[in-house]
C-alpha cells in the first residue's frame, strides 16, 4: 500500500507524540491523585467532632471505625464556606465555596476542587476524572469552570465496563467516525458563528464567546478521546459486578463503589475521582434501618431516628475506612489526597456552618485534630484546605474559591 506523504507525516506525528505524552506524566515524580467522598446529608456533629484539639483527642463514636487510620488522617473543626448561609446550598457549594448563582461574577466561576485538579491533568489518563453516585438523584456536587454540573454514574456495571471493558473493533471504528464527523461539523459551525457574530453588539459578542470557547473545548476532548480510542483499556481482575444500583442495596453497593474507585486509581485509569452519597428519601438497606435517610437526618431529637442515623453514618464511615485500608496496602495512599466530608454542618438544623471534613493520605503529616477558632465571627474558609490540597496535587495556586490562603497548621 502506498502511503501519501501527508498521511505519513501525520502517522509519524502520532508516534512521536506518544513518548512525549508519557514523559509529561513523568516517571520521576509519582503521579498525584485526588479523591473526594461527599455526604450530602452531613454527619451528625454530636457524634463526629472530638472535643479536644491536637494529637491526643479522644475518638468520637463516628471516628471509632477509623481508629486504625488515626495517623493517616487529619480532622478539621470549624471550617466552612463564609458566603454560604443555608444548608440547602451545602452540596452545590461544597467543593467550591461558591453558589452556582454567584459564579458568573468570578473569574473561575464555581469550579469545584476536583475539576480544578482534573483540568491540570486532562489527557494524561483515559478518564480525566470519574464521578460516582448512588442513584439518579446524585449530582450537583462537582461543577465545571463554565458552571455546569458534572454528571455522575451510579450503575456499578456501567462504571466497570467503561473502565475496563474494551469495545469491539466495530464499535471503536464507529466511535472514531463519529468523532471525526463532529470535528468537521465544528469546523463549519465555527465559520457560521463568525458570520453570526458580525451583526451583534458588544455584550452579545461577549456572550457568544462561550460558544467559541465550547468549540475549542470539544475539539480538545475529541483529540483526547481519539488518542485513547486506539489503546487497550486497563485490565481488572474478575468480571463486571451484576448488582442493581441504588440505596436499596446499600450494604453491598457501597463497598462495591469504593472498590471501583480503588480499581480506577490502581489501574491509573484516572487521577481524580469523587463519590457522592446524595440526599435521598430512600431507606438504605442496612440492618436496623427502617426509615429513609433524609428523614433520619431531620431527626428532631427523636431517639429512634438518632439511633438509626447513627447506624447509617457508622456504616458509611466503616466503608470509608476499608477504602483507606486498600489504598494503604496498595501503596497509593501517600500519593492520594482523600477528602471525606460534607457541605452540610447539621442536617437537623440545615446549618452550613462548621462542616465535617477529614483529609487522609496525600503525603501530609497526619494524626491531628485541627480546630480553627473564629476570629471576629468569621470562620476560616474551607477553601484554604482546598488550596493546600491543590498545591499538593502539583498545581501552584495561591487562591481558590473563597480562600484567604493555604490552610495553617497543615504540612
Amino acid at each position, binding site marked *: 500500500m502506498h502511503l501519501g506523504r501527508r498521511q505519513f507525516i501525520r502517522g509519524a506525528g502520532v508516534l512521536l507524540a506518544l513518548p512525549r505524552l508519557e514523559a509529561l506524566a513523568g516517571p520521576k515524580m509519582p503521579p498525584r491523585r485526588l479523591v473526594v467522598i461527599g455526604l450530602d446529608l452531613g454527619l451528625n456533629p454530636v457524634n463526629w467532632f472530638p472535643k479536644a484539639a491536637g494529637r491526643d483527642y479522644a475518638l468520637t463514636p463516628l471516628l471509632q471505625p477509623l481508629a486504625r487510620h488515626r495517623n493517616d488522617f487529619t480532622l478539621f473543626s470549624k471550617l466552612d464556606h463564609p458566603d454560604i448561609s443555608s444548608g440547602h446550598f451545602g452540596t452545590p457549594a461544597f467543593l467550591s465555596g461558591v453558589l452556582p448563582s454567584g459564579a458568573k461574577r468570578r473569574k473561575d466561576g464555581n469550579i469545584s476542587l476536583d475539576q480544578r485538579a482534573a483540568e491540570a491533568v486532562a489527557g494524561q489518563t483515559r478518564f480525566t476524572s470519574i464521578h460516582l453516585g448512588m442513584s439518579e438523584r446524585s449530582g450537583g456536587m462537582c461543577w465545571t469552570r463554565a458552571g455546569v454540573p458534572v*454528571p455522575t454514574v451510579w450503575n456499578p456495571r456501567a462504571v466497570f465496563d467503561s473502565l475496563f471493558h474494551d469495545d469491539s473493533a466495530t464499535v471503536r471504528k464507529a466511535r472514531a467516525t463519529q468523532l471525526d*464527523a463532529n470535528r*468537521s461539523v465544528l469546523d463549519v459551525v465555527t465559520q457560521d458563528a463568525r458570520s453570526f457574530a458580525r451583526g451583534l453588539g458588544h455584550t452579545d459578542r461577549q456572550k457568544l464567546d462561550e460558544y467559541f470557547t465550547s468549540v475549542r473545548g470539544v475539539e480538545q476532548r475529541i483529540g483526547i478521546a481519539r488518542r485513547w480510542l486506539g489503546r487497550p483499556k486497563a485490565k481488572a481482575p474478575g468480571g463486571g459486578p451484576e448488582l442493581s444500583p441504588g440505596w436499596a442495596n446499600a450494604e453491598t453497593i457501597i463497598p462495591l463503589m469504593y472498590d471501583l474507585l480503588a480499581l480506577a486509581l490502581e489501574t491509573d485509569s484516572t487521577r481524580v475521582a469523587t463519590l457522592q452519597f446524595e440526599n435521598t*428519601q430512600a431507606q438504605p438497606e442496612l440492618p436496623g434501618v427502617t426509615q429513609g435517610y433524609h428523614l433520619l437526618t431531620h431527626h428532631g431529637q427523636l431517639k429512634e431516628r438518632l439511633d438509626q442515623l447513627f447506624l447509617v453514618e457508622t456504616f458509611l464511615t466503616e466503608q470509608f475506612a476499608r477504602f483507606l485500608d486498600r489504598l494503604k496496602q496498595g501503596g497509593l495512599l501517600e500519593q492520594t489526597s482523600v477528602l471525606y466530608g460534607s457541605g452540610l454542618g447539621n442536617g437537623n438544623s440545615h446549618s452550613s456552618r462548621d462542616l465535617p471534613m477529614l483529609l487522609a493520605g496525600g503525603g501530609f503529616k497526619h494524626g491531628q485534630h485541627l480546630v480553627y477558632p473564629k476570629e471576629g465571627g468569621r470562620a476560616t474558609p474551607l477553601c484554604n484546605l482546598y488550596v493546600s490540597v491543590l498545591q499538593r496535587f502539583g498545581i501552584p495556586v495561591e487562591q481558590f474559591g473563597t480562600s484567604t490562603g493555604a490552610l495553617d497548621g497543615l504540612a
Partner: protein
Amino acid sequence: MMSTLVFFLWALTAVAPPVQPFLQKTCLKCHGPDKQKGGLRIDTLAADFNDPKAAELWGKVLDQLDAGEMPPEDEPRPTKAAVARTVAWINQGLARTSQRQVLRRLNAAEYRNTVRDLFGIDTTLFNPAESFPGDGADHGFDTVGQDLVTSDFLLEQYLAAADRVMDKVVKPGPAPRSTKRVFSAASFRDDNTETMRTPEHIDMVSRYQTGRVFLTDLTQGVGHDGEYVIRITAAAINRTGHPYSVAELDVDPTEPARLNVFLGTEARGKLDRPQPEEQLAARLDIADGEPRVYEIRTWMDADATPMLMYHNGPLRTAKLYKVVANHLPASDGDKKRKVDFRADRSTRALYLGPRLRVFSVEIEGPIAASWPPPAHVRVFGAQPPRKLDVGYATEVLTRLARRAYRRPVTAQEMKPIAALVGRKLGQGLGFHDAIRFGLKAILCSPKFLYLRERGNEGTLDQHELAARLSYFLWSTMPDDELLAAADRGELANRETLIAQTRRMLADSKVDGFVTNFVGQWLRLRRLNEMPPDRTKFEMYYYDVLDQNMAQESYLFFRHLLEQNLSIANFLDSDFTFANKRLARLYGIDGVSGDAFTKVALKPEHRRGGILGQASVLTVTANGIETSPVVRGVWVLENVFGRPPSPPPANVKALEPDIRGATTVRDQLEKHRSVEACQSCHRKIDPYGFALENFDPVGAFRARYDSKRPIEAGATTPDGHTFKDIVELKQILVAQKDDFARCLTEKLMVYATGRPLARGDRPAIAELIAQAKERGYGLHDLVLQIVESRAFQTK
C-alpha cells in the same frame, strides 16, 4: 474615633455619593466596616449605577428607605426631607439603568419543542434534550439570556442530540416490514410481590409502584419508529363479591378495573415502576369475567416498550396479606399467622380480592401508512428529484435553515454548510449520509441555538419579535403563519400583533407557556426534588399525587388565562380543579373519576388560590416536616415579589425538636427575640404560621404528630391580624395590587428574557394601572405585556 475610621474608608471608594453624610449618619452603624447586617455594606458600595451589582444593591437600599423599614424603629429617625433627598438621588441614578437582553440560547424545554415543530416529530416520549445539563435560572426563569450558559459539555450534547434527531428524520429506503408479535404470559415479567404469574396469564394485584408488567422479550423496544397497534387480552377478576371492605383494600367497587398502558424505555430505568418520563398511551376499562381483546393504536419510538399497570387496584400486597389473615376464620389460627405472600407463596391463593388478569399482548407494526415518516417528507419533500446532488442538498438545507433560524437566509451564508455536504459527497458518501452533516451543522449552529435579537436602535425587527412572541407564548419556534406575518412586516401593526397573540393564546401550544412559566413561578418543577417520605405519606405514591397536584395548578392558571379571570383568584378563589384522588387529599366530597373537573370550593375547605394548592404546600416542605420559615419566604418571593435577605452567617440555626415539648412556633418566637433575626423573621414567619395547618403533602391538619395543636394565627408585618389561612387570604386579596406587581414582574422577566432594572419600574407601574382598570384579567395582562415597549425592544 469611630467616625474618623468610617470617613477614612469612604474616601477609599472610587465614587462617593453626594448623599454621603446621610448614609454615614443613618446606615453605617449596621452596614459599614464593623457590621454588615443582611450582608450589606454601604460604605464600599460604588455610586456607579452602570455596575449591575451596585445598582441592585442601591435598589435594595431604596426599597428599605421607601418602605420606611430602615433605619429600624429603635434607631434615631432621620428627617423626612433627608430621606426624600436620598431617595430622589438613588431614583435618579437607577432611572438611567435598564438592562438589555443578553444574547440568549434556547433552554432545554425550548430545544425539545423546537425540534418537535421544526421536523414534526413526536416528542411525547423522545427527549433530545434529555442529557443536557440543567439550565441556569438565577432570576427565577430559564429564559434569561445572561444566565443560560453554553459549555463544551453542552455542545457535545448538541452534537449527540442532532445525531439522535437525524436518526428519526433521515429515513431513506423502503419501509421496515410490519410484523405482528405475540407475547404470551411466558414472556411477561417474572412475578414479584405485586404480581402472580401462571403459564397462562399474569395477575396484577395492587397499584403499588413496582407492580408493573412489561415484556421481557421487548425491553429494547419495538425497533422502528412508527404507528403500532397494541392488542391486550385481559379480564378483571373478583372485582366484587370478595369478603374485604373498601377501606381494607382502598378500592372503589363502583369503578371498572382500569388498565394503564404506559410507554417507556429501558434507558430511563427499570420497566416495573414509574419512569422519570413516560407516556400514558391508554387507560382501558377492563370488563369483569371472560377475557376480551382491547386494541389501541399509538405512535411508538424505536426504543419504546409497553408497561402495564392496574391503575385503580388495591394497596400493596404487604398490606393485603394482613387483610387476608384477618378474614380467615379464628379456627385457622396457625394458618393465619403464616399468611405472607413473600415468604410462603402458597398463601397467595388465600387472597380472594380484585386482580387484573392479562393473558397476552400483541404488537403489530410499524404500520406502512406512516412511511416515509412525516419528518422525512417535511425535510426532503414528497417527491425528491431523481438526481440527488449537491444542488438539491443546498435547496433542502436552505429550506430547513429558513425555519431553523426563524428568518430568511442568504445563499452566501449557506455556502460553508453546502460545501461540507459537497465534500462528503465527493468522498463517496451516499446522499443521505452526506446531507446528515449539513443538517447536523444547522442544528449545532449558533443561528439555531441562539435567539438573535440585535435590536437595532432598540427595537426588535419583525423576525426577532416573532421569535420572542412564540418563545413567550409557546416555548417553541414561530409557526408558518407567524413567520409569514413577519416576512410581510405586519407585526409592526398593532392590530395584527394583537390578533396573532390572541390566536397563539388559543392554540394548544400555549401549554408550553403554562407549564414552563407556572412550573418555575410556583416551583412545581421541583416537586420531586425532596419527595415525601414513603412510609409517612404513602398515599402520595399510591395516588400519584405529585402529578395530580401539578395538574391542578396548571389547569387553574390556564383557566384564568382562557377566561380572562382576575389574577386575584391566585390569592383566593371559590373554585379549583380536582379529580377524585386530589379531592380525597383535600377532603372534598362528590368528586369522581380520574379526569379533572372544575370544583366549587367552600370556605371550610380552606382551599382556593395558590396557597391552598397541595403542589405549593408540598414543594415548600421537605417531604418530612414543614417549616414556617421556608413557606414564609416562599410567600414573600412569589406573592409579594420581595425576597428577604439570606440569614446572617453567625446566627445559630434553629435545631428542630419534635419530641413534643415545644412546637416550631415556640422555637421561632425565641429565635425572633434575637435582635439580628427579628427584622426579617417578623416579615417571614406570619405567612408561614398561616400555612402550618397543611402538612408536608398539603393535607389539612389541626395538630402536629406530637399532638400539640397548631396555632395558625399571627399578625402581618404591616399590622393586620388573622386567625388562620382563610382570614389571611382575605387580607391578601385586599392587597392584590402588591401581588399584581409581583406577577407582572415575573411575567416580564419570563417574556423578555432579561432581569428587570429599576428603570423599568415606571413602565411596569403604568402597565399595572391599566390592568387594574381592566379588572386584572390574566389574558389582558399577557396582551398588555406583548404590547409593552419593554417586550418589543432588546
